[in-house]
């Protein structure tokens, strides 16, 4: 008997009885609005593996939000992991909420329907804790909509014991200062243990009869040293607008707040039962995270810097998670997720093991990796043994070799061309090359070199494949300096110059008679990058801009059809009136070594002096090696956190896995003749 026909975990009995207690579902009111909005299914929940618990059975209630549309938010790994980690606890429940589109927002306001969770359709305002995962800063206005629809005061200072604690997490939380007015707390780093810590503190405080009110709860969280409470810190400014200092204003509140690092990924194999929505989402596949962190040290890359050190999941755990997840979800495709998946020390074993295991089934495997080398192609070939070889992506990031030294992406042009030609030679028809524009010290020539690279790629690719119909797409992202990276001091390129540079590049590609037709070119205009830059490196004064632009109607800023640059600039002008700073001051200005940065009191584990030296090396075009393969270059993460980089083959194989169950054995008719 296989478990596959009895997936007992999602019991419908649970669903039926869950809502007959204190906090009532708002679904009956919502249901009347749904026939009037587009894609109503996104608001009804009912995902496979969703959990609804009776409200009064638990001590602590979490609402988790990914502040974007359901189709983007529901596949988010971070939220799915925390949802499951929390719901596994007997004394805790967690439900999810997503941003509602403006059509429903309007109807909800008219009908008085509050922001709701999609699980139990409970009103957001009823929860104890409201955790938001910010992958990008462009979700800030959606947070304000959710708070407002929930009847929660926008400003933390106006909230009392009736309101949930608003807690920010995700990469953007490494500089939460622009939203400091709106949140009660922020958590840096991995959330698994952090949410349990916060749950425990909250549970105990509630059990004791909420002594000292909301402030006491916040104080208890602050004293753990790893939950940042913005209101417990005062920010003083210099006359020229820079920060003088950031200091705690309460006894027992630490000067610096540290990030959370989950050390053993094998002990935390989440999500075990990934959510499968009924509605279409941006990822119609299951993901298994194979490691966290990245040691490559690309200087622009915030994700790579703040998630150090590398922590690998063993091949065995990965294989088990793939197996269990496929059975629980019925998905046909599995993505092996991480920042740079080809860098897992056992990736060859994992890829071959999984490809063997699922050979002959309809299960597809994918490995999001953009490494520019032949090994990456070997891996991709392995994973597509029987399938279609449609597209491969490589990310050289910088167009010229000089630029790649500045950003520390160590690949020569010769290697790049050879690698891509090999891909065409192996039957891949489409290659996507990802670059950045606006990098520190960049000139027009550096960017125009991208056209040259693309030309050579096609030229060599035609020879290698013997075909003329191969294509390459050049995709360009605007560089945005991010906190906790060596480029945190850098000047961001203004959007006019970005656009002008990209126009020149476009013309250079278009005007190429021989190869231009085989090269696609994708880029966005530079304006959204200005707002993202402002929000990334902003301080508390930026909060007033967010509130103003939200009041003026800004929503879904990550969507080009909703983003309104002029509204943002107008809001900035109004909100910063009387201040000595403006948008250019936040974005275009290069910072000095001595400047207090708004996020200096938030400890990502990286030594600030090391970051500064790396910044100086960048300007001098000195590259550093990957610290996994060469002696460590002392970024600070390992020593300080008492952690070792966890790599190296475990020697395990996938052979210990039981054979795949044969299909449908239990469904066969017993008396068939």
């Amino acid at each position, binding site marked *: 008997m*296989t478990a*596959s*026909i*009895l*997936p007992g975990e*999602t019991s419908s009995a649970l*669903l*039926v009885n*869950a*809502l007959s207690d204190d906090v009532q*579902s708002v*679904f*009956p009111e919502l*249901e*009347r609005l*749904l*026939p*009037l909005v587009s894609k*109503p*299914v996104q*608001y*009804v*929940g*009912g*995902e*496979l593996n969703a959990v609804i618990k009776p409200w009064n059975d638990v001590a602590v209630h979490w609402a988790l939000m990914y502040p974007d549309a359901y189709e983007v938010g529901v596949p988010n790994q971070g939220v799915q992991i925390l949802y499951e980690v929390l719901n596994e606890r007997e004394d805790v429940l967690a439900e999810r909420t997503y941003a509602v589109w403006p059509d429903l927002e309007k109807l909800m306001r008219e009908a008085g329907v509050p922001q709701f969770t999609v699980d139990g*359709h409970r009103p957001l305002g009823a929860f104890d804790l409201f955790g938001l995962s910010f992958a990008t800063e462009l979700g800030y206005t959606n947070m304000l909509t959710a708070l407002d629809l929930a009847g929660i005061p926008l400003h933390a200072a106006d909230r009392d014991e009736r309101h949930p604690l608003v807690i920010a997490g995700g990469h953007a939380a490494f500089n939460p200062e622009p939203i400091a007015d709106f949140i009660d707390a922020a958590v840096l780093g991995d959330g698994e243990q952090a949410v349990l810590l916060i749950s425990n503190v909250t549970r105990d405080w509630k059990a004791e009869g909420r002594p000292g009110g909301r402030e006491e709860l916040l104080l208890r969280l602050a004293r753990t040293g790893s939950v940042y409470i913005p209101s417990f810190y005062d920010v003083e400014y210099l006359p020229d607008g820079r920060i003088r200092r950031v200091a705690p204003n309460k006894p027992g509140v630490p000067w610096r707040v540290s990030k959370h690092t989950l050390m053993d990924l094998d002990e935390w194999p989440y999500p075990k039962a990934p959510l*499968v929505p*009924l*509605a*279409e989402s941006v990822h*119609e596949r299951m993901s298994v995270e194979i490691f966290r962190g990245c040691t490559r040290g690309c200087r622009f890359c915030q994700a790579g810097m703040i998630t150090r050190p590398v922590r690998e999941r063993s091949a065995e755990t990965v294989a088990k998670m793939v197996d269990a997840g*496929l*059975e*629980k*979800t*019925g*998905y*046909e495709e599995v993505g092996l997720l991480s920042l740079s998946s080809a860098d897992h020390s056992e990736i060859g074993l994992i890829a071959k093991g999984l490809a063997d295991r699922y050979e002959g089934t*309809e299960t597809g495997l994918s490995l999001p990796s953009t490494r520019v080398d032949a090994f990456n192609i070997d891996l991709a070939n392995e994973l597509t043994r*029987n*399938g*279609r*070889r449609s597209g491969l992506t490589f990310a050289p990031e910088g167009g010229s070799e000089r630029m790649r030294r500045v950003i520390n992406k160590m690949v020569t042009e010769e290697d790049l061309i050879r690698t891509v030609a090999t891909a065409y*030679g*192996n*039957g891949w028809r489409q290659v996507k090359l990802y670059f950045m524009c606006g990098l520190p010290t960049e000139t027009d020539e550096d960017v125009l070199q991208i056209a040259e690279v693309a030309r050579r790629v096609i030229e060599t690719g035609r020879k290698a*494949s*013997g*075909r003329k119909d191969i294509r390459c797409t050049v995709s360009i992202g605007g560089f945005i300096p991010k906190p906790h990276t060596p480029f945190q001091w850098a000047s961001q390129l203004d959007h006019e110059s970005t656009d002008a540079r990209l126009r020149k590049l476009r013309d250079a590609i278009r005007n190429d008679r021989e190869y231009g037709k085989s090269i696609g070119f994708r880029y966005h205009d530079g304006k959204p990058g200005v707002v993202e830059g402002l929000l990334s490196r902003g301080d508390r004064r930026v909060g007033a801009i967010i509130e103003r632009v939200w009041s003026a109607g800004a929503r879904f800023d990550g969507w080009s059809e909703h983003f309104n640059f002029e509204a943002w600039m107008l809001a900035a002008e109004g909100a910063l009136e009387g201040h000595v700073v403006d948008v250019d001051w936040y974005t275009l200005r290069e910072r000095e070594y001595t400047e207090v940065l708004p996020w200096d009191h938030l400890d990502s584990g990286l030594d600030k002096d090391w970051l500064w030296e790396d910044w100086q090396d960048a300007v001098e075009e000195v590259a550093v090696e990957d610290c996994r393969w060469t002696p460590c270059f002392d970024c600070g993460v390992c020593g300080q956190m008492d952690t070792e980089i966890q790599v190296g083959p475990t020697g395990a194989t996938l052979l210990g896995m039981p054979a795949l*169950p044969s*299909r*449908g*054995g*239990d*469904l*066969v*008719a*017993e008396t*068939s003749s």
Partner: protein
Amino acid sequence: MSPRQAPVRDVAPTVQRLRLRYAKRGRLRFSSHRDFQRAFERALRRAGVPMAYSQGFNPHPRVSYANSAPTGTASEAEYVEIAVTAMLDPEKVRLALDTALPPGLDVIEVVSSKTSDFIERLEASVWELELPGVSVKTARSAAEALMAAEEVMVERLTKNGIRTFDARGPVVAVEVPLPATPADPGGDSPEGGIHSPEEMADCAIMRLVVRHVTPSVRPDDVLVALRHVANLVPPVPVRVTRLAQGPLVADVSGQTVLNAVTDPFAADRG
């Protein structure tokens, strides 16, 4: 290297065809046909149903879907046919698929196909409309006005632009039962119904038998027709449930609406 060909697989042959009746209930009535397709194909994999697959680069399981109810409409009678590579026990398949689908997408019955022309047997649907804020009297006179008309032309935006067609002709019968006979709520959502008791006091139920034609006439279209002939405009969105699909009895007159359409599986049960 030469262009890659779609691999030729040893595709196991179809051994049996199974026909399924399923319901779309409660909040899941807001799922679209595409949503159902995705959920169903995943459920087939989760349940381990040995599906027959098509050939090619992207083989897909052999599933045929019949006239699905529109998004937002609940249904007690949706039909699907699947091809499998082993002789299966229909009841075991029903249970396995019902468990693998989310609550609200419920597999009601599975039969082994013994006949062809299944789609042709789905001649008509019985629809139930809950009309909150509309009294039985008003609903009855609107229904009479509709049936008295020869034809009622309505417009609908389709993929090919605006189409104008007759929404009256395919309506074979209408019935507005007295409130004393409470309607079957049709498998309600766990959250309870959309309408409060006060509203129910003034909530007529209208049942329609509509023949399947091209372009199909949906309950929405009949509502537009009711507005044209009787100025019936329900103040709150109408909740619609498909109660049945199947062969139409030869003579509808004298039948209750619910008896006008018979079981399309009758021939397969044999």
